[in-house]
């Protein structure tokens, strides 16, 4: 799963779940290292995104029905 495809929200949620996984006691050390790296990548990605200013405003152009 490429972090590029995930939305900011999804990335954040994934990051939080990885942190939780790492905290848990039942962790295979090798997987833990993998997870840590993944988490770190995600964190950097999220940080980068959070620092951008790129909201889009879409104006809806529909007109209203006239009152009877």
């Amino acid at each position: 799963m490429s972090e590029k495809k995930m939305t900011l929200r999804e990335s954040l949620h994934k990051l939080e779940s990885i942190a939780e996984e790492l905290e848990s006691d039942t962790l295979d050390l090798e997987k833990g290292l993998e997870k840590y790296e993944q988490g770190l990548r995600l964190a950097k990605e999220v940080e980068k995104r959070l620092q951008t200013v790129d909201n889009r405003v879409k104006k809806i152009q529909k007109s209203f029905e006239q009152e009877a």
Partner: protein
Amino acid sequence: MDILTPNDFGSERVYSVAEFNRFVDEILSQDLYRVRGEVSGYKVIQNRWVTFDLKDEESKLSCFLSVYQLSEPITDGMEIIAVGSPGVYVPFGRYTFRVKNVQLVGEGALRRAFELTKRKLAAEGLFDEQFKKQPLRIPETIGLITSEDAAAYTDVLRILKNRWSQLTIYFYHVQVQGERSPLQITEVLDWFNRYQPVDVIILTRGGGSLEDLQSFNSEAVCRAVFASRIPVISAVGHERDVTLVDFVADVRASTPSNAAEIAVPDRREVLEHVRVLERDMLVFLQKHTEEAKQQARHILNRLRFAMNQRLVYFQELSHRIAVSVRILARRLEFFQTSLADWRKRSVRAFQGKYEVVQEHVHTLNKHLEYLHPKFPLRRGFSITRTSAGKVIRSAREVRISQEIMTEFQHGAVQSRVRKIFKNGHVGHQKE
């Protein structure tokens, strides 16, 4: 529009009463007019028709409309503007005013209407907490309903830009006051729910008088906000401005800026949170690594201990074997010595015995000599045989004139039998 007068027709045309009333009704009801007055004698008939009188100091006007046309709650004493057309109610020939729309006028009326609507909606449960939906902590799409001329519009967009990124904001311009405002707002709320289900809607406007805020107190808008499946954040005016929409909305913000703050998180806080997570993850990883190391050390120690135990065991075993071997060797030696000893003794014993046996054999030999059949020959006995060689033991075995051989110690003679003496021997001749 020409107004026909009876003069146009002169005195030629004669109307029936109904005709005439209908005629006048038609004339009157061509246009819409706005009439302002005080409501009195308000009545609802069969839950469908509403009648009241609109009056001022000098005169009164009889009004009529259906319940469904009533957009505002009105009661006696309220000052209103009735929008409608005059006409004649033909069956009774009565002059009446058919109301199309009612507008509340003046603080008093508006406040009364506010109270009435509030009580009504509260009773129906529109303000209840249980119906309020919690908006997502991190939205990706936001619906913004306000006037593009309003300061609220720029405020919201600015705060959103400051606080968060990667948002798509769908802005739908509406009139936030005036006659058309409630309808537009309800239509837009419906549109978002149907065609553009954003994560959260911000419904907002700046401050104003009670009259300005009227549409945000209207029953129609409140019902539309209640019906919205999308969570609605309402933000009207300033902290002290409270409208009925604020009671119905899922979240109430005190100002438009506040609405934006509620809608999205603060990027700095989240950034900090992410950094904390990064640190935490490292700590957790280190903790796990340390634990793993500990475990490994522990296992190694146990292994060492076990190996040591084994080693000691085998050392002991080999020691015991060595001891056993030594004992065995000694026994073997002892056995060999005994054997040698025994041999010596046996040989000696045997030799002794051997001498005895030799003696014995010698004696036996002597005996044997005596027992040798030819030994008696030394003593003078002789052996007589037939010519065949058979030894003769008895006189009965021979015949007269048989040739016999007699062996002596030295030599032998051949003779012929002359006489046989059955019993006795040579010493005595018997006839």
